[in-house]
């Protein structure tokens, strides 16, 4: 673990990714305590204020402090994306490993079906599921998790198949180890790493997808301080006060960049060959 961290810090992507994601996680935890104002209090006399000492990032159309909304919204946006990706990864890993374990015709059938499901673009899949379940943050989370499942299943299966063919697995079989030992002690530790990398990059995509659903009015609902929703609500006022739309946009992009960098850094650190 320490070795992995050292390797990550050596590459610029890994170091920057760790920094950005670490910072973001701190904000997710302590954000609400750092916020100078209540994110949902209307202050009619302080509407459309540009950034100032009193309101560092300005105020929105209801006079709410944008910085406070961003700090509170970190949970609504980042945490949701992480949970959704974890959900999709778990479900996908289960399907992928099962498919690789079964092998033969069942494997073929499962993977062809997974390929078929993947021909529905993630956003469309999420849209359909949210339409089915009703619009809310939680349903958006479920929808993204489900939309990610086939992709993660495919990745897991291919990794599990390569691992099964490795010499150390054959050696374990030759030693006469039990199947459970081989799966848990030999295969799983080597399957987990590439999946974590893939999941990290997916979190970036989940942040964007979640914000997009909220933007289309199908994810978080007003007055939640979700970042995608903030962009969507401030679009009407962008001629008047561009910073209202700028800050949440920047926040979304920063988180996505952070997770993209972290994922690439992790991959490089776990594959010293390249």
């Amino acid at each position, binding site marked *: 673990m320490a070795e992995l961290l050292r390797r990550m810090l050596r590459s610029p992507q890994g170091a920057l990714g760790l920094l950005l994601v670490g910072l973001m996680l701190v904000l997710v935890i302590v954000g609400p305590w750092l916020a100078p104002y209540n994110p949902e209090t209307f202050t009619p006399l302080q509407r459309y204020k540009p950034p100032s000492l009193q309101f560092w990032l300005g105020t929105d159309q209801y006079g709410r402090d944008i910085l406070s909304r961003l700090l509170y919204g970190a949970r609504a946006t980042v945490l949701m994306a992480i949970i959704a990706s974890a959900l999709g990864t778990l479900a996908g890993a289960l399907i992928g490993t099962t498919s690789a374990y079964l092998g033969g015709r069942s494997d073929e059938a499962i993977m062809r079906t997974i*390929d078929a499901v993947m021909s*529905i673009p993630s956003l469309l899949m999420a849209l359909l599921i949210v339409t089915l379940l009703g619009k809310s943050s939680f349903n958006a989370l479920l929808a993204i998790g489900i939309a990610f499942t086939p992709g993660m299943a495919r990745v897991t299966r291919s990794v599990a198949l390569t691992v099964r063919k490795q010499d150390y697995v054959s050696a374990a079989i030759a030693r006469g180890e039990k199947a459970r030992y081989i799966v848990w002690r030999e295969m799983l530790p080597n399957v987990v790493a590439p999946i974590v990398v893939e999941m990290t990059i997916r979190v970036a995509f989940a942040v964007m997808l979640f914000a997009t659903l909220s933007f*289309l009015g199908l994810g978080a609902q007003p007055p939640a301080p979700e970042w*995608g929703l903030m962009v969507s609500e401030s679009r009407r006022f*962008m001629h008047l006060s561009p910073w209202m739309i700028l800050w949440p946009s920047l926040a979304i992009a920063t988180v996505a*960049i952070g997770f993209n960098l972290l994922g690439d850094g992790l991959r490089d650190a776990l594959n010293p060959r390249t």
Partner: protein
Amino acid sequence: MSPAYVLKRIALIGYTLFVVSLIVFAITQILPADAAVMLLGENATADALAAVRVQLGLDAPVWLQYGRWLIGVLQGDFGVSMRTGQPVGPVLVEALGRSLLLALFAILLMLCLAVPLGIVAAIRRGKATDLGVSVTSYIGVSVPEFVSATLLILVLADWLQWLPATGYVPLTEDFARGLKHLVLPVLTVSIILIAHVSRMVRSELVDVLHTDYIRAARLKGLSARAVLFKHALRNALLPTITIVALDVGYLLGGVIVVEEIFALPGIGRQLIVAIQSRDLPSIQAGALIMASTYAIANFLADMTYAWLDKRIQYG
């Protein structure tokens, strides 16, 4: 590429569309919307509702409804829109045409920019140019379409007044104005594609430049230009075809958002409208058409790949 392989791939497209049709039908079946109530309004009498259900075939068992719908689709009949009362098929096919135009321009722009950018970054690996391309592409893949669209409208349409913000003019009606209306949507959709593909081209080319046959080409005294264009690019660009085909999925997702923002009457906007008004036949047909577009794009990419790369033997 044996005929058996081509046939197998075509059969797989059929299977894909079958699975997609099942999913789409299942989702729209469980939708908590009663088509009869939507048609007649909340105050309709129970008798009237029952009559409409019989007329729409909603009283039949689910599998029979699915069978009827599937047979209709196979004959090109996607049903009648619950919102407008018009047949769904022709409307969606017309909308698909506009979306494909948008997608085509986006892919062209992407190829014109992403490939040269990736090549330059790979040749100048580790230099400032490489860093610049790589930083830009990180930003590019991390900005969702709705954000980049909004910022582009703000700068290019509102502040500079160079381009119209929203709307659509058919190219056949007024070519110049039609093109102007397409610039912002095309730019928006292609940003993520350009960022992603340029990174892929760079990493493929970096790998190829490290192979023995490139060293051999250099050692026999070929110029850097000849090595690059005659030997390296050929193999580095091949995988790009597959990546572009896989990116069609992102592209179609992006098209939905972009058409909604720029009020471009393509299939994505039709889908959003259908979803908002719970117009089941339109949702079913729209999703099915999108999935088939993706499946066919991947099929064509695989065929092109197999045809260009003679090393690959498909069984």
